């Protein structure tokens, strides 16, 4: 009898904690970690924009953790790349995405984790990047982090300086071009007007002349 109770409790516990417990095979569950949700007025907009996607359900953002969860019909086979593009289209920066498919398979990507081989020659670059807020910070840092050879990127909101640690093959010009392409002016690389205008309102910094 004791064993039966233990098995029953274990079953209950597994049922509650297992993310696929109760999940329909017709539905994929998405978890997206988004950076730069410091401004609630823009962050609530991300939730609102996702709710406009046809078929999306149970959209929820936890402001403290930056975690966004939603469900989407499995037959539409929404990919990690498509989710990241949707988040970026809304002006935000995805740093990790995981999908629990209806058939039980799991897909995941995490842009925060990046290893560089020991003994690699590293350099530090520091330069000005225009921006306003936490969302700008996430976009600037994540853009740099996506580049091959960049190990870390930290942008300071007050000084507007970004500090990059990268392998010797990465030049400042390369990083500045990439960051400008994401919508942020540097002293030598300017963002395209259309990209700048598509940034959320709180990210509309004073353009570099």
């Amino acid at each position, binding site marked *: 009898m004791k064993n039966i109770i233990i098995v029953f409790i274990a079953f209950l516990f597994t049922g509650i904690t297992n993310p696929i417990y109760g999940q329909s095979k017709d539905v994929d569950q998405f978890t997206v970690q988004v950076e730069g949700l*410091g*401004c*609630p*007025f823009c962050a*609530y*907009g991300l*939730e*609102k924009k996702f*709710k406009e996607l046809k078929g999306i359900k149970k959209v929820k953002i936890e*402001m*403290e953790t930056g975690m966004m969860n939603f469900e989407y019909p499995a037959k539409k086979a929404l990919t990690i790349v498509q989710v990241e593009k949707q988040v970026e289209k809304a002006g935000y920066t995805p740093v990790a995405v995981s999908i629990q498919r209806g058939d039980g398979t799991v897909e995941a990507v995490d842009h925060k984790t990046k290893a560089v081989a020991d003994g690699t020659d590293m350099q530090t670059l520091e330069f000005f990047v225009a921006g*306003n*807020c936490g969302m700008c910070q996430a976009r600037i840092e994540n853009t740099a982090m996506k580049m091959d050879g960049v190990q870390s990127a930290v942008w300071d*909101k007050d000084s507007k300086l970004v500090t990059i640690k990268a392998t010797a093959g990465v030049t400042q010009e390369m990083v500045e071009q990439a960051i400008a392409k994401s919508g942020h002016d540097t002293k030598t690389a300017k963002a395209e007007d259309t990209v700048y205008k598509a940034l959320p*309102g*709180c990210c*509309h910094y004073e353009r570099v002349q």
Partner: protein
Amino acid sequence: MKYLYIGLLAFLAGCSHSSDEWKPVGNMDLGEITPIGLTIQDGHFWISDGDHNQVVKVSLQGEILTTINDFERPMHLGNDGTAVYIPEYGSDNIVKLENGERTILTIPDSLDAPAGIDFYQQEIAIADFYNHRILFFDGKNWNSIGKEGKAAGEFYYPTDIHIGSDKIFVADAYNNRIQVFDKKGSSLQVIGTEDKINAATGIFATPDEIFITDFENDRVLSYDHEGVRKQIFTEGINKPTDILVEGDLLYIANYKGKNLLSFRK
């Protein structure tokens, strides 16, 4: 004797300057509440907590009296003396909350992320965030004020609004400024452009002063009605979202600080 006079005058000038400044007198911890909007009705605070989709009734001493859940991103609150009105950013509705009953305010136009509401006698004004405009009910008709843009009279994501006796004051969030209109919708003043505000999120006006929260810079600024800056509040300010004056006290809601600060002259 001449020096004595000068010294006395300087002392008096110093006294009159300091008595005109607001000084911190209190700090009310709100626990896990992340305040967005603030109004006082019937001797109680009503605070919207957008992150947790709730509206909370709090005594003036800081005791949480009632928590009401299941709102969709409630924003800057207003009241008409009998009911509290909650703009829901997520549902595009204005919810009227009276004696615990919820109804939807009927508006002859659609909103896209309403972010603030205010009342003055029969008048109602709504900050319509994604439509970059103000909807104003003058007691008879609803009028739309402004459009998306950077020029005077245009908006870039208005987040909060205040109706005075003869003017309308708007927190023009990402144009980083205050805008003032008459009640026919004509632009009268643009205030704060020299102060490098970074997200003007909450606004309040008295007959003497206009207050604006400067969200990203952790400041609140006050101006006279000519647009001349009077005071910069920084002490204890941590991502401020709303502000109001009641009696001789000024209250500031800190979103990140999760508290209400009070000031007195």
